[in-house]
């Protein structure tokens, strides 16, 4: 059983969190110089396993071997010493530090007690250039675009002589073209003997880049396969454990009146930087307009302005025939807006409050939930029971704190609250981020149902597949502007990818 090529091995790793068995007797091995993809849907246990390998978590049972020798990894210091480096899904970079400071943090070079910034800068420059990852050591990380920040993360691991590189969902923040560039860099690294574990839930890139694929589901390893014997459909059913319909069932759209008209919108972010630079578009009742684009091109601020959370510098917004420019959230909601926010735990729910209260968060002051200032508790309770059943929210009772629900059910509470009102326009931002396949299917179904009921939908998502599957028309946002608007039926992935990267003049 000795394969001299195996550089890293996990045997029987088990990890429990309160109420959840995150890893269940997981076996995993990595061969030298390979790109090994770890595939699974959100919550399958992939990140947990990697965090254990990297020393951020401790396993309850099981062992880890490097080059055939059992090792104890109690902290990142140990894993770094073993030559393991990790690039996390959410970057571990201090925005107010320079690239050099971020790279040397924890492993500082000093001269007589003072930080030796010059030496580190020089080394960073050399290292990044060597691997095709050029970065400016003196740049402030917070001001770098996301794709460059990722390079800094990789340089950080190479600075510490990583021979094993773990990449956790690295393409979530990249355009298709940038993802391709990343794959090129990865092949360059493996050619130099670096071994890579690549975590993802995106089926397309798995087949493009993997030497081997290990699929995880509900904390267990389902199997390890090679790309030659697989296709997307087979991988999907391994991931989910049943037949997965990869295409969303969608009839023809029948768009009617314009329900949202946006003209020449200009918006600044908190630092005064212009992030939306003259955007105009419209959404009709009964159609889905998808806004595609990598995060950070102004979509977040656009959604904030449309929902009344931020003031635009210039431009106008008409909803349902009314001018809602500059209005606060309440009148916009009363004019018929439903909103599924990007950050569901921060903006969408009051986690410390009950499910019932969250379900009337927008309507508590209106009859039948209130008479003058007195809350009519029976009406609130009846409403909660009705919606919990209708939307199949898994909760023991309406009076449970929302914090106790799973991510998918939390999103269902938001969906139930928003879509059960008499609404004319739905703005959905990253509605399925971090959710399991079952919940994703449910929400996609609901969005199509809304559209078929005659409601206009503005869908903002960084997942190009989601945009392409749901939208009737697609607009691409790049650097604060809409650079193209196309009919979804005619759009191709490659073309959209180019627009998203700003590659079209």
């Amino acid at each position: 059983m000795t394969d001299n090529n195996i550089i890293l091995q996990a045997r029987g790793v088990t990890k429990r969190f309160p109420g959840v068995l995150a890893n269940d007797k997981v076996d995993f091995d990595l061969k030298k110089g390979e790109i090994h993809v770890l595939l699974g849907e959100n919550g399958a246990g992939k990140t947990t396993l990697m965090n254990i390998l990297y020393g951020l978590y401790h396993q309850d049972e099981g062992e880890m071997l490097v080059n055939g020798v059992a090792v104890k990894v109690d902290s990142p210091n140990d894993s770094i010493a073993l030559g393991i480096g990790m690039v996390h899904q959410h970057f571990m970079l201090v925005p107010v530090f320079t690239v050099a400071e971020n790279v040397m943090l924890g492993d500082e070079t000093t001269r007589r007690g003072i930080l030796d910034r010059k030496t580190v800068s020089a080394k960073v420059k050399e290292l990044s250039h060597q691997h095709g990852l050029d970065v400016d050591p003196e740049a402030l990380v917070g001001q770098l675009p996301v794709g460059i920040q990722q390079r800094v993360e990789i340089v950080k691991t190479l600075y510490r002589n990583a021979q094993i590189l773990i990449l956790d969902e690295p393409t979530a923040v990249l355009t298709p073209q940038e993802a391709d560039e990343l794959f090129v860099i990865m092949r360059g690294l493996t050619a130099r003997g670096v071994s890579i574990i690549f975590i993802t839930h995106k089926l397309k890139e798995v087949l493009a880049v993997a030497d081997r694929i290990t699929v995880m589901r509900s904390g267990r390893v389902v199997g390890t396969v090679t790309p030659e014997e697989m296709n997307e459909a087979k991988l999907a059913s391994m991931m989910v454990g049943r037949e997965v319909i990869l295409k969303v069932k969608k009839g023809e759209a029948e768009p009617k009146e314009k329900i949202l008209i946006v003209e020449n919108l200009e918006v600044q972010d908190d630092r005064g930087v212009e992030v939306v630079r003259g955007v105009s578009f419209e959404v009709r009742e009964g159609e889905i307009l998808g806004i595609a684009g990598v995060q950070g091109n102004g979509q977040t601020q656009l959604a904030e302005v449309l929902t009344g959370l931020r003031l635009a510098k210039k431009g106008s917004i008409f909803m349902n025939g009314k001018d809602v420019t500059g209005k606060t959230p309440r009148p916009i909601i009363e004019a018929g807006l439903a909103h599924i926010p990007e950050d569901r735990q921060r903006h969408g729910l009051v986690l410390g409050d009950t499910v019932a209260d969250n379900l009337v968060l927008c309507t508590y002051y209106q009859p039948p939930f209130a008479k003058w200032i007195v809350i009519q508790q029976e009406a609130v309770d009846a409403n909660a029971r009705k919606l919990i059943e209708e939307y199949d929210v898994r909760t023991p009772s309406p009076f449970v704190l929302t914090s106790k629900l799973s991510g998918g059910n939390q999103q269902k509470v938001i969906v139930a609250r928003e879509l059960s009102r008499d609404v004319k326009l739905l703005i959905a931002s990253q509605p399925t981020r971090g959710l399991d396949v079952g919940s994703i299917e449910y929400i996609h179904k609901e969005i199509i149902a809304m559209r078929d009921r005659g409601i206009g939908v503005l869908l903002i998502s960084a997942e190009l597949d989601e945009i392409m599957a749901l939208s009737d028309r697609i607009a691409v946002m790049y650097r604060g502007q809409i650079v193209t608007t196309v009919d979804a039926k005619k759009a191709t992935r490659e073309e959209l990818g180019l627009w998203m990267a700003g590659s079209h003049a």
Partner: protein
Amino acid sequence: MPEIDTKQAPQSGLSGIIKEAINSPLLVPLLAILTAMVVGGVIIAMVGGNPFAAYLGLAQGAFGSFKALSETAVWASPYIFAGLAVALAFKGGLFNIGAEGQLALGAVTSAWVGYALPDMLGITLPPILHISLTIGAGILAGALWAAIPGALKAYTGGHEVINTIMMNYIALNMVSFLLNGPMKDRTPGNVIARTPEIAESARIPIIFEGLRVHWGFVLALFIAFLAWWLLWKTTVGFEIRTVGMNPDAAKYAGINVKRTIVLTMALSGLLAGMAGAIEVTGLNYRHELGFSIGYGFDAIAIALLGKTHPLGVVLAAILFAGMRNGGTRMQFLTQIPVDIISVIQALILLFVAADAIIRYIYRIKVEEERVTLTRGWGG
């Protein structure tokens, strides 16, 4: 991810009762008080006293006779109001450390209406009117004084912790100025910085002949009920609590967060002002310099001990009032200085705030929601 089972079916029998008791929200505060008294007892022993005699004297002085109960109720009245003030602010996600200043200004304003108004108008006022105006002036002053840092937080982001503390010092300076100057009691022979006595018509009647307890205590209990009703049964309370739990989601859902913050602080100041007004109209019939010192911190301790719930605040206020009242008797009987009470109260607060320490000592596992006040710190 598998669902987490949250609600367990109620269990029957003795084990069920014990389990209910262990999970009851009263347990940790009670154990905190117990632990603090044990530590206090150790300190008493260390300075040469007898802890058991001391605590006996304390209990006697607090609850041992009708007079003792009356005195405890008298002390409890302003504590209830002040504790409610801080608790209400907490529910709204705000830390009102300015209860002391709001209380002092409330007291001084009430005192002024109490002693100056009849002379100004040249007539004697019917007590109902005069008392209402007196208390009304006090709560208005308190509300205004708290609304200022509230507005600063809502519209400039200045954290209310430092601003309310600054307002305390400003209020104290203003009150010192007034009590040493324009509002000073000019009866011949008086050198103390205090207001003249308020008119008869402005004094809250006592309940029982011979005892000091007055109707203000009943008012305090009623206001506590009103606070509970406001917070959990009205739309206003819903907004206050929602902003307290998650201002981002509240804004998203259409609640006017800025307005709610100012309103919460104003209501909080209103209650603190009422504490001062009750002191003046029910207890001392005047305001004297230094009388409000310490109420601010006591109010915080009472609010936290009462778990920011109006009922808890009432119970905690009565406890603190009992300790304050019984302390003098304890000192009289056992020579232990009454300051040990402050130390015990500080320890109670420590154990309540860090209830994890209590849970560790007594091996209890209880899920608690976490208070977050550090939002918005520093801009």
